[in-house]
């Protein structure tokens, strides 16, 4: 959670806590108020972590379309952007392409060389097996090597201190020692990669595909079929592929034309995976 979200959550929670603390003064409505306050707290967390479920639910119930630009609209399901030109419906949908967490916790870089040799062939094979329009997008910016290295070295020192403290205690826990050693290897592997010339980057990967049909339903069905095929094909790339719905769909539509100008703008729109 970034600082802005924490601030928003903190202030919103204060209102709810103020009511909860003095709930007893509401007489016969105390229990009902407590239940509603707990529901409000759950809503705050749902909006923060699962608004991709809430927002489409709301637009579905209210049957609301969103118009992000002329000739385009996002239907009530919030899962694609549709353009209607000359009686033909073009539906564009998006898939996230997030790396799995285990990719970030690799302890050694030996396997990297094999992966890098296989990468071009695997990519070409994937491209050849796709028989419809699609676009693979990577929004990326490089980070300062020195500050990133200092951050890693700070974490490494802390872990080494904790390890030596555990080892020198009277009864060191083998599980704690193993876990600390594993974390040290992960950090060391990242430092080694920086030393070999790699630069740290912040990236956002997503895949989009477009389908056409003579009706809205035909276009949407064709799009769903295409996105399902892409999920199958791209699953072999250590990527967590999920269909994008809700507000993130609107931002990815905008990124087709204009991308954020700064890292902070990008981070304010999407969560960070480290």
């Amino acid at each position: 959670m970034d600082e802005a979200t924490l601030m928003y959550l903190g202030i919103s929670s204060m209102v709810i806590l103020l009511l909860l603390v003095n709930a007893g003064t509401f007489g016969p409505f105390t229990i009902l108020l407590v239940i509603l306050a707990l529901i409000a707290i759950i809503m705050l967390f749902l909006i923060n972590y699962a608004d991709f479920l809430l927002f489409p639910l709301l637009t579905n119930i209210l049957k609301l379309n969103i118009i992000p630009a002329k000739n385009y609209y996002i239907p009530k399901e919030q899962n694609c952007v549709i353009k209607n030109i000359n009686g033909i419906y073009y539906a564009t949908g998006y898939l996230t392409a997030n790396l799995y967490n285990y990719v970030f916790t690799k302890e050694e870089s030996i396997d990297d060389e094999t992966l890098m040799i296989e990468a071009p062939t695997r990519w070409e094979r994937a491209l050849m097996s796709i028989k419809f329009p699609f676009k693979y997008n990577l929004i990326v910016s490089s980070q300062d090597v020195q500050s990133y290295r200092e951050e890693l070295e700070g974490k490494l020192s802390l872990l080494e201190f904790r390890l030596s403290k555990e080892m020198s205690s009277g009864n060191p826990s083998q599980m704690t020692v193993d876990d600390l050693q594993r974390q040290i290897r992960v950090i060391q592997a990242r430092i080694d990669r920086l030393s070999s010339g790699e630069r740290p980057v912040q990236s956002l990967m997503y895949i989009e595909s477009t389908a056409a049909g003579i009706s809205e339903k035909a276009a949407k069905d064709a799009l769903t079929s295409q996105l399902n095929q892409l999920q199958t094909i791209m699953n072999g790339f250590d990527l967590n592929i999920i269909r994008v719905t809700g507000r993130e769909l609107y931002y990815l539509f905008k990124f087709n034309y204009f991308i954020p100008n700064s890292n902070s703008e990008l981070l304010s729109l999407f969560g960070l995976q480290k």
Partner: protein
Amino acid sequence: MPNFQTMIFGVFEAIAFAMVVLAYSTPIYIIKFILAIFALLFSVLGFSMRYYYYIIVPFIHAKNKSIILNNSEAFFVAPNGNAIFNEENGIVSATVFVRIPVYSSSTEMSDEEKYDFSNLFSKIVSLSKTPIKISTQLRILNKDDFINKIKDKLNEAENRYNEILSKKDSKPEEVERAKGEVTMWHNLIDSISKIDSFSAISYVAVTAKGGSQEEAINMALQKANEVAAGINSTYGVIADIITTPEIFTLLEPEYIIPYSSISRQISGMV
């Protein structure tokens, strides 16, 4: 943080706090409870402005079940055709697209070359400190012009065949050759028209913002030239800026899927 977002959040939370204060100051339980419900509602609404501030005003003005975020075109093309731009809240954003002209296949590469290729791509990825978008797009080729040229060739071949047939002293091998040519163009049209052909392009998109159209476009072009220089030095190729009409093939769905391929699908269904 955008000012409007902070302002609308502040308004909702201020109303929520005011409701809490009013709820505490009133002795009547039912009014306290109703005020508390409003306080909870405004508190949740206020938090939702963290992500949905852009939709609140259009939602209030929604008509016919449509929330209009933007009623104008998604983009406008720069006068030179080498960039797109749009204005929002007084700020102009401009994007330039730089082609990555690398046309090699991994089937032609040794393991060492594949490793080097992957290494080069990671250098491209870390090219810029501000966000850039690296994309690979597969789109359906518009083969109408090509098919029309083949049809012209077919017509010429058929005319020649008819001419040869109408001559009394035509040699059998001349007739066979002319007939073979007609068959060849027929088969070519059939095979090209039957399936979709695809075109792949890799490119980098860079965006810049400015107070005016010229400023934003110039800044975007400057960033694009830096990126192009990086691509040139990394891959040893000459990266160029994509201009109209090719720029539409990156942005508009009707260029990504040409009308001719859809009409083929429809006639196949009928």
